[in-house]
């Protein structure tokens, strides 16, 4: 966990000193109140969760699998503190819950945490978007460990406003050599470092230690950067999905429902490069691209033909999972078949009953296929729809030819080196 700093400077402690009035708008008031009285501090951090997800949320989150390591932070409270730490996280990091709740996630950084990765996370937080990165974290005893860090914002379903951030951490095992080298001998050294970070600027800790090049630190430098494999990535995504569904479920109890995707046009399209959008725009078939690396596989691209087929506007579909096309008479078997082929990373064709926005239904000859980028990784799943009622196009081409032609064109476009080399890239190393 690193650099969850929305408010630029100042730890929790400083913030309270200046502003002690309670006539401020609610989030800030909560923040101020949270830190005004040391005794009620914890209460307010807790309220950050209970006011949104009901008072049963703590228990519900503790019911999640014990090895699921995650944190929930509240960007509206000064210092962007941790408001929940899972049991899995506590056992890996060696901290107690009391020790981390209320603090900014950057306390888990250390001297060898890559600055650029930290910046990338901060940028994602600023832009309120999901992201995934491999990063070096530090335990309470000063030892370090590689994790795949998966960040996901939580939004209010109705107003699209940011509520919390969820971050899942999946340990990345060392590949190849099977030696468990302690990152550092002097645990105290890093304990001191963390204190410094906690009290002030997030990156200052690196300065005093950059010059350290003695035998104690050599072990660290030898520690190679570890990249997450597909297993870790899947685990992280699955974890986020699980947590989000819990949060969504319990938020219904307060009536202030949350979801993992902001229902606004910008949230989805931002992840595709303009050159890719241009290439995709040439394909005059009804299709969508969904991003399997984002929680719940939201739609990140929808063609014009898809919009005219379903009757939705682009804003209404981007950021949502395709299941909204289903309805009362949609067969569970068809959905299951889709799920299975996605899990197996295989293509499939399914005849499925879908519903338009106006409630009318149509038989959709849906073809779904994984689409890989120039790194050879699955970047999207493409779903090409054909309304069975409109079988022949003016050339008399069969639905399957048109569908597979569109799939091929999407696959060519996504292989573009530029489309996966942009800043929005997730899978480049």
């Amino acid at each position: 966990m690193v650099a969850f700093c929305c408010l630029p400077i100042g730890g929790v402690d400083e913030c309270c000193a200046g502003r002690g009035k309670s006539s401020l708008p609610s989030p800030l008031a909560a923040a101020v109140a949270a830190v005004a009285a040391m005794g009620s501090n914890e209460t307010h951090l807790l309220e950050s969760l209970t006011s949104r997800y009901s008072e049963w949320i703590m228990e519900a989150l503790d019911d999640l699998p014990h090895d699921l390591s995650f944190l929930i932070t509240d960007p509206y409270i000064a210092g962007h503190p941790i408001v929940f730490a899972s049991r899995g996280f506590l056992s890996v990091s060696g901290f107690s819950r009391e020790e981390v709740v209320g603090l900014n996630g950057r306390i888990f950084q250390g001297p060898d945490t890559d600055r650029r990765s930290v910046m990338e996370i901060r940028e994602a937080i600023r832009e309120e978007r999901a992201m995934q990165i491999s990063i070096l974290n530090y335990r309470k005893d000063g030892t370090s460990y590689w994790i795949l860090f998966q960040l996901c914002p939580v939004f209010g379903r109705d107003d699209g406003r940011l509520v919390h951030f969820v971050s899942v951490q999946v340990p990345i095992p060392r590949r190849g050599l099977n030696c468990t080298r302690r990152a550092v001998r002097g645990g105290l050294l890093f304990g001191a470092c963390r204190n410094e970070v906690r009290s002030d600027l997030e990156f200052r800790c690196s300065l005093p230690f950059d010059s350290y090049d003695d035998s104690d630190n050599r072990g660290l430098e030898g520690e190679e950067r570890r990249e997450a494999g597909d297993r870790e990535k899947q685990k992280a995504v699955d974890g986020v999905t699980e947590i989000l569904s819990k949060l969504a479920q319990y938020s219904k109890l307060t009536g202030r429902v949350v979801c993992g995707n902001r229902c606004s046009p910008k949230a989805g399209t931002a992840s595709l490069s303009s050159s890719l959008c241009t290439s995709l725009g040439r394909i005059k078939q009804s299709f969508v691209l969904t991003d399997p690396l984002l929680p719940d596989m939201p739609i990140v691209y929808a063609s014009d033909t898809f919009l005219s087929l379903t009757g939705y506007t682009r804003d209404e579909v981007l950021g949502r999972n395709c299941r909204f096309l289903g309805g009362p008479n949609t067969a569970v078997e068809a959905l299951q078949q889709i799920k299975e082929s996605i899990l197996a990373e295989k293509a499939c064709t399914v005849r499925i009953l879908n519903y338009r926005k106006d409630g009318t239904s149509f038989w959709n000859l849906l073809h779904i296929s994984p689409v890989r980028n120039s790194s050879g990784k699955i970047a999207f799943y493409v779903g090409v729809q054909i309304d069975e009622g409109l079988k022949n196009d003016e050339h008399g081409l069969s639905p399957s030819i048109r569908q597979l032609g569109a799939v091929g064109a999407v696959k060519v476009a996504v292989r573009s080196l530029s489309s996966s080399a942009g800043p929005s890239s997730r899978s480049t190393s």
Partner: protein
Amino acid sequence: MVSFTLFEGDYPVVKQATSQEQSKSYEAPLRGFETLVYLVCATKQNGAYDGFSCTSDDGQSLLDTLILSQWEERAWMGRLSYDVTSCETKIVGGMKLTAQLNEEWNSNFLKEFEKKTFQSSGGIIKPSYIKNNQEEILFCVASGESERSVLVPFVATPQEGTLIIVNANPIEYGHIFLVPYYHHKRTQSIGGALQLITQIADEVDNLSFRMFYDYSATNTDRTFFQASYFANPLPVELLPFIPIYGSSIDGIQILEVADYPLNALVFASKNLRKLADVVGEICSTLQHRNTVFNLLISNCGTKMFLFPQVHLPVTGHHLHAWECGGYFIYRKSLDFDDASEKEISKWLASVSIDAESFQSLKQLCCGITAKFS
């Protein structure tokens, strides 16, 4: 964009082809073989090129859809040796050379394909190939008589045309072989084949689509082309060009690729028929002189790159057209990681013809082009 109509039932050209089956054609391995037949429109054939549709916003062309869909289907059915889109590619150096890591790459695929497909001499397709490998044949392209290009489902192949065959060892998405065939003639010259090939490039109308032709002493009587889809331009296409011939709007321009380790020429024109005639004639001349060379056709047929190579009879190791274009495949991840511009440049330079030969090639090309103007 060209527009298309589907003809139900018998189509005149195809009918004519079948009726002539009675005549004595001694080599007709394709006789009776039924497949999808794409007939290119006649107006373009007659030289009435009315500019280009590359920039049109009409979406995918029919031929493009056909190639992609048939290829994707074969890939989905597991007919290919591997999924080439799972191969990592990267840019190497300032020249933006492209490297691909493909551990399942079969570097002998071309020789194996020739052995499997053609009779040992004469460049004729083996009847047994047609019989045993129908799944590999995606469809057939032939010249039509209509004003529109049309798709005729499952009829006997016309007397002459080009077979579109999937390459099970692709270098990129949509890698195909294009094999011109004749029922009545024994061999096919590149000059003759290039007309239809250029027309295919035009009708595919997709800037990602690139076609290749490799000529070396070993495949003298087998004329076939390859094509594949590359989302990015091949490195050689991005380099500066120095004009050496022509300037008029309708005519042909010859340019020289600057700052490239491999000496290369570019022929560019919007008049595809003329471009195919000129480049075809130059290729025929080079073949008669036993010169090793490659062609890369890009930009919907309007740009043709000519890469002459030195004859290396001892090693026999010549580059493929995509390699000449700056696209290299590595089988080992160590080599892929170490890929450097310096090393690739060395390979390119090692097959490049010297300045003197290149100068005389330029003269030859200008001379032939002038003849056609």
